[in-house]
């Protein structure tokens, strides 16, 4: 809304900023609490004031969370599971993005009878509750010999991410002038040449969106991880949950907080670096349907 000529910095303006600041606090508070308490020794946490800064700063909880905390039966810390997550996320993101791009290309520039149905089915697959596929997927992974492996998880995330990546690229390419493709066809360019030389170079923004979205969703996934992974392939999120929900022994809250932040770091960093595109991508998919 335009500020009218003559409107001064009134008292309402200060109130506005105050309200916004209060909400900023609301959103930041949990993160602050986790951070602050991850540097405290355990006695301080039990003392009571979770908002207070540490009297004694210590990084022991962090090193414990990373390399020595008890996760399940092994006292390995979160490191190996961090690696598992990376090994799972990278291929899944790459594959689903590439396939999504090709799908979007076909669906917008190479129309054929029934392509609406294909797109509708792909789109619908974005919304299914994953509980519905847990049982058969477990069986199929077993049959394929992929049960409990990272490759199995990659397959799972690939399949259930295809709907989203296809949606992103399809919406993006729909706005891309078809005349350019026709002109290239007149020049004799082939299907793939058109894709690699004309569409792909202009796809920067949507590739970023797709990668960020997939990375965030797959990294943060819990359900598939807890259902299909084994010790060798357990992703970070499941490991974190094991760490914090263990009912035996002393609850080392400070280690839990450090672990949670470690788990959140990759997606937070991705978000801070490229947050604008993150939101823009969600809008493109959601608002335009």
């Amino acid at each position, binding site marked *: 809304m*335009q500020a*009218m*000529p*003559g409107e001064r910095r009134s008292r309402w303006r200060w109130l506005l900023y105050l309200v916004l600041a209060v909400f900023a606090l609301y959103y930041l508070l949990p993160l602050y609490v986790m951070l602050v308490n991850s540097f405290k020794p355990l006695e301080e946490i039990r003392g009571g004031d979770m908002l207070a800064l540490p009297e004694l700063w210590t990084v022991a909880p962090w090193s414990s969370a990373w390399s020595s905390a008890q996760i399940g039966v092994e006292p390995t810390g979160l490191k190996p599971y961090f690696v598992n997550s990376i090994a799972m996320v990278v291929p899944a993101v790459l594959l689903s993005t590439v396939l999504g791009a090709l799908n979007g290309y076909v669906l917008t520039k190479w129309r054929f009878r029934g392509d609406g149905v294909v797109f509708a089915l792909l789109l619908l697959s974005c919304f299914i509750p994953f509980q519905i596929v847990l049982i058969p997927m477990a069986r199929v992974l077993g049959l394929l010999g992929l049960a409990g492996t990272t490759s199995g998880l990659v397959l799972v995330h690939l399949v259930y991410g295809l709907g989203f990546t296809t949606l992103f690229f399809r919406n993006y390419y729909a706005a891309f002038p078809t005349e350019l493709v026709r002109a290239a066809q007149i020049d004799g360019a082939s299907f793939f040449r058109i894709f690699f030389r004309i569409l792909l170079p202009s796809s920067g923004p949507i590739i970023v969106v797709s990668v960020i979205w997939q990375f965030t969703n797959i990294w943060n996934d819990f359900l598939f991880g807890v259902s299909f992974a084994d010790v060798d392939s357990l992703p970070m999120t499941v490991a974190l949950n094991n760490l914090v929900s263990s009912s035996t022994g002393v609850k080392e809250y400070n280690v839990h907080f450090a672990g949670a932040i470690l788990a959140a770091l990759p997606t937070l960093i991705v978000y801070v670096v490229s947050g604008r595109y993150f939101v823009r991508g969600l809008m493109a998919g959601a608002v335009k349907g």
Partner: protein
Amino acid sequence: MGFLEIERLGKRFGSTEALRDISLEVDEGGFLVLVGPSGCGKSTLLNMIAGFEAASEGDIRIAGRSVAGLHPSKRDIAMVFQSYALYPNMSVADNIGFGMETRGVPKPERRKKIDEVAAILQIEPLLKRRPAQLSGGQRQRVAMGRALVRDPRVFLFDEPLSNLDARLRVDMRTEIKKLHQRLGTTIVYVTHDQIEAMTLATRIAVLRAGEVQQIGTPDDIYNRPANTFVADFMGSPAMNRVGGRIERAEEGLVFVAEGMRLALPPPGEALAAYEGRAVELGIRAEDLTDRGGVHAEAIANPMTKSVESRADGLAAGTGRLVEIERTVELVEPTGSDTFVFTRDGEVSMTARVRNDSGIVAGERARLVLDMRKTHFFDPSDGRRIE
């Protein structure tokens, strides 16, 4: 209803100067058109009159009272936007009545006024519809209705016809003119289309890069352009401009350029000061035509002495009509006229000839030039030499 005064108005956006030292006046009931190319500041000026932008310098007065600092709703103005800006979720009737509703005017009175305005603009059957269900021309009328119902002192129009197709544009232009004549309202109208400016305005202000180039009646602007920019901008096709020199010859002052030598009809005192210097000749295409369109005896041969013209209303003395020969590059029939594009060396000229002139591309043609319609411009600053 009052009149509008703009006094030494200036506007800066950061370090960019959008408007500089603008002074204008519109009489009550006048129709002022602000015309100029994109980016010349005309929309900014309109927004400042409306109150959406504050002035960096200068003042705006409506009916003698300064409106500086007043909210748009308090300036007694109404505005028709380029995109119409109709409220999409309200019916046409509600759109028109929204302002009254906000002021608390009771429903029956609102109803009455809406019906009145709808009758004037012939949109009665549309009152219950939503904007999305209307055509471009209908939406435009509703936008005008919303402005009309405010009964303001000044109406502001921001390129209202740009979004319409060519045919509709001509129809709506006529409607706006009729409305103005019927209601006698004071109007400030922004457009980039010089034809709209010429047909609608009682006064035109030509703007360029934030400065007023010329203010005057359409006749002033068209026939006595203050500088080359105004001369080029108004009129289609653009005015022909030929660079040359003024020289003194035995018959008096002559203008000399590539392939032409024109005796200048006296009195030429203003031009005498340019003797021996470079000037630019300006002549519109319609004043350069084929021989068959004029009386043969009235034409003087430019290469020899001038001939006395016949006493039938033509200017006494020498060479009102002068013949020149040009090489024709292209002939373009438009239906009602034919345009001939000539090129001799560096000099191009456009002439408007009759359809049966017989002029053919690639040949030389003899064209007749009306010296009374020539303008001369100083090449250093583009100003017209009076």
